[in-house]
């Protein structure tokens, strides 16, 4: 059974069966990654372009590795900032890359909607590797994979996404995916970091981190963007840590069984204390390994889709 779409633009509206298919396929590739020879010939002859308009070494490396493990040919295009200010327009850049006969494009951009726009100007399969504050579907998929790997299921779990929801691309994808697989999703963060009317997606909101830890099986803790102008959403990072940071004392006091995820890179002493970042509650490095398997699964399913 193939995926229902030839692109992966986000998890909004993606059928549950598709998400499950990706997670199940990733299980197979996860096993490949444990072999001495970690390479399969599945996407031999396919050319994939990683089109990164924003710095994101981790995501790009993860995609690149997944492509190499599947024996695809990879080209990288990295450019930051507005295309308008750099002479060549985004459309011209894409048309140029398209002329090199690429089969798939993995795209990262600071503007929401760029992957959707790409589907209108390119014939390649488009994979969204993060657009603005919109979606980052492979991150959510690897988060769900990691939860399922650790807790055996998603259905019925209580998952809280903690932090700057409004400026995150990870939050929305997680909300869509988790709800679709039957989890109960809540959000925890300062009121200034919760976007308008997000409850309408079927999530609940708390501003109390102790409650969030106590009432959930999983906390997916988002990175606080240090580069955001100080004082606009939160007074100081220190105040953030004091009232929303996850510490081992808080975990021990409220819920020693809670599982901590973090998409990385971590700001130690801000959203997580160092002790938590290195401690037994978290699965942050598993997420990184699983990320390669998830991206292999997505590339494989889209690249071999009839």
């Amino acid at each position: 059974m193939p995926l229902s779409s030839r692109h992966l633009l986000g998890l909004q509206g993606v059928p549950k069966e598709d998400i499950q298919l990706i997670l199940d396929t990733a299980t197979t590739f996860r096993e490949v990654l444990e072999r001495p020879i970690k390479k399969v010939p599945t996407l031999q002859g396919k050319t994939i372009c990683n089109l990164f308009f924003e710095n994101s070494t981790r995501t790009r490396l993860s995609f690149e590795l997944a492509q190499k493990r599947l024996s695809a040919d990879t080209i990288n295009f990295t450019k930051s900032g507005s295309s308008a200010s750099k002479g060549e327009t985004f459309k011209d850049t894409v048309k140029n890359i398209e002329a090199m006969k690429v089969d798939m494009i993995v795209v990262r951009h600071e503007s929401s909607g760029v992957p959707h726009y790409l589907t209108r100007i390119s014939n390649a399969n488009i994979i969204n590797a993060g657009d603005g504050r919109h979606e980052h579907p492979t991150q959510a998929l690897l988060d769900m994979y990691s939860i399922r790997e650790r807790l055996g299921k998603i259905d019925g779990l209580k998952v809280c996404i903690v932090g700057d929801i409004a400026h995150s691309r990870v939050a929305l994808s997680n909300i869509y995916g988790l709800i679709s697989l039957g989890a109960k999703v809540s959000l925890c963060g300062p009121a200034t970091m919760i976007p308008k009317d997000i409850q309408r997606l079927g999530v609940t909101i708390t501003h109390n981190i102790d409650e969030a830890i106590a009432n959930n099986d999983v906390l997916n803790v988002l990175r606080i963007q240090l580069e955001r102008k100080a004082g606009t959403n939160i007074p100081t990072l220190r105040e953030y840590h004091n009232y929303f940071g996850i510490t081992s004392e808080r975990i021990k006091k409220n819920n020693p069984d809670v599982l901590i995820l973090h998409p990385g890179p971590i700001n130690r002493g801000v959203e997580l204390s160092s002790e938590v970042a290195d401690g037994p509650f978290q699965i942050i490095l598993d997420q990184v390994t699983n990320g390669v398997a998830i991206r292999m699964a997505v590339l494989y399913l889209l690249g071999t889709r009839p």
Partner: protein
Amino acid sequence: MKSLFKGLNLLDPEQNLNLQADLLIEDGIIKSIGDINQKEIQDCEVFDFTGMYCVPGLFDMHVHLREPGREDEETVQTGCNAAAAGGFTGVACMPNTSPAIDSAEVINLILGKAKNHLVDVFPVGAVTSGRKGEGLAPIFELVEAGAVAFSDDGTVVKTSSILRSAMEYCLMFGSTIIEHCEDESMADGAMNESFTSTQLGLPSIPTIAEDIIVARDILVAEYTGGKIHIAHISSKKSVELVREAKKKGIKVTCEVTPHHFSLNDEYVKNFDTNYKMNPPLRTQADVEAMIEGLKDGTIDCIASDHAPHSIEEKEMEFIYAPNGIIGLETQLALVISELYLKKHLTLPQIVEKLSINPRKILGLNIPKISEGENANLTIFDPAKIWTIDINQFKSKSRNSPFDKKLVTGKSIAVINKGKMYFENSFRLV
């Protein structure tokens, strides 16, 4: 030169005229109205316009003609052609050109370019020099040169103190300040703030960014006794503020664009930059408030905010793309399709909002359908069904979200200054 128009429905709400009759125009003057036998008139061109409506020439008080500065996007000439094709005999053009309309030279340049065109062009002068929000533009000089109102459109008049000065200064001429209402400290976004912006992850502009400035401007108008006109009103709360202010007798008027009474922010969902404008498309509740405001008279007029942009600039990542769409050639059809056919407004009300009121706000002469008057007329067919095609536009630009939309209502001809635009060409009447 004599032209006879047969079978028109003459509609002029200012004179309580609603009459089926023929119209004879001679050298640009309305010669006679009534049952005219063409055999009795020699050397006369005859147009059978049976069933068409003939109204005082339509007027769009908010267009961007882009000249001087961005002649690649629009010129006075192409903008006027678009106006004529869309059924307009007059436009007021906004001062955010390059250089801005903040000197008599720029006004003279624009008026010079427009001089021989059928469409009347009335420049709006900048409130502040270079539209920078710092010092007043030479308003006296601009009035003398022909500015009909003042605005820093594209941006808000930055401080309350300069707005107050401008309003007081304008009291000397009775000129209106046209305000682009946007609190810049809250307006760093690409769409309206709502559940939709949350779902799309786009940086957003809350309606209060508009409301706060509308409230400020009403207070300044009340205090100074000056006249304020709210451009492209889009938020429900702002309409309420204007409604209350009018009740108190404050001199405030406002306009709405066709996109703000016909589209809501859910249209942004496919990230098509032709749905990116400023103010942004709002929620359905706001759209309904626009229609309510039009019905009860809170909203005085309809204007397109015709904002041409090149394809290269508009075909861009959503957050970088410029704001605005062109509207001169779609406006009448959207008004008829969305307001007349849906029974929100009658044709006389539409004529008020598209012809009479904008001229009143700017203090211009109002054309009359009456013997001996200059013929300044729009003839349109409110029942004509057609499909909008951006490639047929006379405008130099193509940025419209209404391409391929099936609409009802079309301008057939416009007449002004002894000229007529009909079937894609100009001729004398």
